[in-house]
């Protein structure tokens, strides 16, 4: 299973990555929406990403914009998008869900709440 972690904070990426790897995800990191979009586009289509963990506030291209762009391309219909959010951005999350994000995860992220969301999205332990 391939996972893309999109967050402008290096610490956050490292943390999420440390949670996801034991769950047998091959993790790639991206520093913002643009970076993530590039990584997705340039990825070998025979090995698609299965899920992307996406932060909301990022420079260059934010989480919502990333979702909007990625969903415009039918090639990326399959990838699950999990928005990572704080409680005060919860209202904006609905916009992302409308644009095509699959679910959201409230900060602080823990091993348990991440595992739970992944399970809901159809990823087996």
């Amino acid at each position, binding site marked *: 299973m391939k996972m893309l972690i999109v967050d402008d904070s290096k610490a956050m990426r490292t943390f999420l990555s440390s949670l996801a790897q034991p769950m047998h995800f091959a993790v790639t990191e991206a520093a913002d929406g643009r970076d993530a*979009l590039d990584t997705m586009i340039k990825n070998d289509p*025979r090995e*698609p990403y299965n899920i992307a963990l996406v932060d909301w506030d990022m420079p260059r291209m934010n989480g919502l914009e990333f979702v909007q762009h990625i969903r*415009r391309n039918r*090639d990326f219909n399959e990838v699950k998008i999990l928005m990572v959010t704080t409680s005060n951005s919860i209202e904006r999350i609905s916009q992302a869900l409308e644009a095509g994000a699959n679910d959201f995860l409230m900060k602080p992220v823990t091993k348990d709440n991440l595992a739970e969301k992944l399970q809901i999205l159809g990823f087996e332990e």
Partner: protein
Amino acid sequence: MANNDALQQQLIKDLLVESAEGLDRFDREILAIEKGEGTTETPNIVFRVIHTIKGTSGCLGLNKIESVAHVGENLLSAWRDGKVEVSPEMTTALFAYSDALREMLRCLETTGAEGSADYSDLLQQLQDLLDTTATPAPEAPAAPAGFGLFEDEPGTNVPAPQPDAEPVAKTVAPAESDSPASKAPSAAASAIRVDVGQLDKLMNLVGELVLARNQIVQYSGQAKDSALIAASQRLNIITTELQESVMKTRMQPIGNIWSKFPRVVRDVAHELGKDVQLVMEGQETELDRTIIEAIKDPLTHIVRNSIDHGIEKPEARAAAGKKSQGNLVLRAFHEGGQVNIEISDDGRGIDIGRIKQKAIEKGIANHDQISRMSDREAFNLIFLPGFSTAEKVTNVSGRGVGMDVVKTNIERIGGSVDILSENGKGTTLKIKIPLTLAIIPALIVTSGGERFAIPQVSLLELVRLEAEQARKGIETVYGAPVYRLRGQLLPLVFLNQTLAGTSRERAGGSGFMQQQAHDTGDLFLKAREAHRNWLRKLRQVLEGTQTMTLEEAGSHTLCALGKWIYADGLKKFGAVPEMQALEKVHQHFHDAVKEVVAQKISENPVKAEAAFKRATNISRDVFNCLTNAEKRIVENQNINIIVLQADGRQFGLVVDGINDTEEIVVKPLGKQLKAITCFAGATIMGDGKVALILDVLGLAQHAKVISEVRDHALLDKEESATRIDNRQTLLLFDAGAGSRMALPLSLVARLEEFPRAKVENSGTQEVVQYRGQILPLIQVSKYVTTTRPSEPICSDPMQVVVYSEQGRSVGLVVSKINDIVQETVTVKREAAGNGILGSAVIQNKVTDLVDIPAIIRVAAPAFYENHSPAADSTPEMQAIL
């Protein structure tokens, strides 16, 4: 959402840049495949290029580009997976395909929309290639589904392909999918994409910083604060480093624009049925991006031209004994702060005869000019507007852009272009361009109280002439001032007169200069005399033999020198500091004189004597001031000549003063001033004042030392050196009855005129006394056979060519000396015999070459008595034949 719009624009811009690079890469790889140089990576690379375009355009909602890219992606993915074999049809179709994508992207760039062009034929062709060759793998159409495409399309069974795709992905995964994922972050860490506009802005700011630095450095030069001086030195060094670094960020390897040439060469060669191999050397040579942009089109044009006009078809090459494959070499290298680019082919070369003929036909030059032109000058004719030697306009090079546009474009960025060609062997174009345009080293000069900057690229040397030397060295040729620099005549342009619009007749010239210096000397002589006389008068006043009123004594304006100072001195040389000093000292002098007269009137001789002593002391200062002022003024009449080169020609620019070299930041002139050809721009100097940058070529044309239409370029030194071997200096003369003859100038000892009365007879031989010897005279017309009847020459005085060999001389009597020419002659020996070595075309006329030893042997056999000539003809003669 406005914000979203800006993002979309940015994304499209990035797509355009990335795709352009990608498609160039795509072309290169396909070209390699065609040549059989492809690697196992090649299908991956080209697939990724198209895949990225498809992915990005999909995310941006560019559905048309996405769908076109999709078809190509299918074919390429089948190729990558080994399901399709590459074929010549396929590479050709793929080239057309990359062009189609480029076209759509260009359309997107210019109109903002994907355009309405129809590519269904091409796409069908690609589809057919996929279908026909992919038949052994019937599951191929299902393969894309496995990549996650079109899952939402009706009729596709989603779960079914999943297990199919899984094993494929697993087997390839470790080797293939690791790399793109791990590459992306690492590449992102070491390199970033920067907007070109941002770099331009940065360069502008650095330019401003350089100006500010220059100001601070100049200011701190006068300051005594050591801390300030140290800080400004640091600022100086850092600014220079910053400038270099920023400049470096704008540098791009020339390979960036060359990379499309393999494709251009392939296409053009295909179209014309030629076989051309392209060799590129020095692709890593770096240039400023504005310059890269500027030379892109000219270079493409030259490359097309070389293949179209230069390289022959394989059959023609074989017939000429050459390899059937033509060679086109692009070479770039740094040399002397400039970038050199050479484009050479081993084709048929330039037919000089045709060029000359064409020039005459088109009225670009007349017969006379053409005949005097060197080969190199003739080659350069092709750079003239409206000159094209192609008999018919071809699709390839006849696209309304002539070589004149190439030359103009290259010269616009301060470059130069030159052409060398050898008939049958090939042509080389040499382009020289500056590294950058924004900040250039320049020489600052003063003229008419204003400062001007001269770009150092056109600067050859500086010559300073003392006033005396200048008077002797500067001559006038047909009213134009020239200076003889190491034996070469250098036309002079007086900057202040040129800019003031003074006509050339009045400007410069030795007469003018002599007059000027003479006048100055005269003027000061008068001043000294006036003062001396006045002193004498004062002494008489002291001795009581003269009287003087107090008013007269105290006035510094009433005395003769005072009148001189205010009527002549200050008016003419008011700017000279010594002159201003003179005025003050002269006033002091009169203060002292007033005292003398006052004491005299009050009959106090002792005090009067003392005051007189003071006055004479000050008077000495008056003389000193006069001498110094004169010295300074004459010195100012020294001449500073800046030897400049424009369009291959040299001329001397005369300025008032030469200040220093400086790095200047070029600022364009406003559009009101753009039309003035003398200036290339402006710059801000250290003291905050503006100085104009001189456009050397424009200035030369304005001053008419270089004609605006380039009728002939200067032969350069190396060129003439290599040509010495096959060029001959020939003396042209009429032997009588209008027969044109020539002989090598090296055989001629002297040209003399003898009055007929001096001719005497010695036996049957006509002779004259010449330098204490007897010089036998030979009437050339008698001994050479020409078609015209020969008449005895009866001009008086007689024109005689003195020929010497082994200490003996003979005089050849001819009717008229015509000219001395330097030419490469091809001698036809058909007309040989009877005193003629052969004939050649010189100055477009058939001219006989005289065989002097043969004539002498017949006419004056005594000449060779005891001395047999070393050979039938002299070595000089042999050299021509």
